[in-house]
């Protein structure tokens, strides 16, 4: 990771990767969503509403994965003082918050025809809502710290402490009796039939690549702004 501590070296890799991740992600998303909408069968119990899974599950994974990325980058910033770690963590925050919000919105839209309600204060939904609030707090804290000229240590500590919510979300369906169904895909395998699994995996991979592309765009913008501010300071001196 320290190979890419040099922003110039990082940018040489990030420039072609931004477009490659974006376009390949877009193609995979299109294939996954079209497969989920028109080729995958309806569920024997939930009917057609199960097709919301192809946008809801990737959004949930990326919401949780985004905060895991923030926690790892925060650790790298605090322990190893990696110069790009703070930039990477901040670049993940907005797309992470967006996918968490999309998880909540699409989950509500799935819940109405399936459970008869848009919202229930159960463990999974409440812990996911807490994740959205954590993202909003992290973004606000990062902006305030940057405006004060801070090094982002408080924001990094917040990113690390907030990671406690990730295992709570994951195990919420086991720890509490919830409306939300249990885990269908794990390390050991999946209980989803292959006819429904392939569009989900394509969609999840596509959204993940797209997420990576957005993070790289935001990192490149942040690095360009830092370079601009440094030059303006040198010119003013």
């Amino acid at each position: 990771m320290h190979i890419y501590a040099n922003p110039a070296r990082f940018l040489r890799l990030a420039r072609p990767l931004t477009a490659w991740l974006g376009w390949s992600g877009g193609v995979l998303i299109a294939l996954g969503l079209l497969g989920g909408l028109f080729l995958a069968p309806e569920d024997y119990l939930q009917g057609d509403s199960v097709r919301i899974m192809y946008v809801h599950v990737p959004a949930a994974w990326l919401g949780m994965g985004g905060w895991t990325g923030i926690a790892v980058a925060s650790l790298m910033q605090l322990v190893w003082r990696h110069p790009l770690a703070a930039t990477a963590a901040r670049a993940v925050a907005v797309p992470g918050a967006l996918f968490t919000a999309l998880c909540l919105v699409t989950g509500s839209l799935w819940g109405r025809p399936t459970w008869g309600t848009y919202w229930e204060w159960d463990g999974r939904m409440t812990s996911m809502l807490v994740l959205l609030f954590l993202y909003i707090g992290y973004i606000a804290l990062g902006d305030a710290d940057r405006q004060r000229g801070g090094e982002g240590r408080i924001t990094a500590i917040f990113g690390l402490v907030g990671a406690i919510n990730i295992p709570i979300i994951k195990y919420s369906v086991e720890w509490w009796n919830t409306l939300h169904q249990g885990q269908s895909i794990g390390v050991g395998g999946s209980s989803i039939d292959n006819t429904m699994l392939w569009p989900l995996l394509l969609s999840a991979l596509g959204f993940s690549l797209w997420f990576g592309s957005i993070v790289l765009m935001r990192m490149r913008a942040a690095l360009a702004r830092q370079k601009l501010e440094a030059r303006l300071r040198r010119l003013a001196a």
Partner: protein
Amino acid sequence: MNHWPFIIAAYAATILATSGLTLWSWSAMRRAEREADALRQSK
């Protein structure tokens, strides 16, 4: 109950939100990189 209005709403929200964020991030990146390049060339 017809499920398709819920499905269409979920897909539309996802596509619109992710496309909007992509456009915003891309235009912010292009603007910042253009400004940084312009300042370097003006020196």
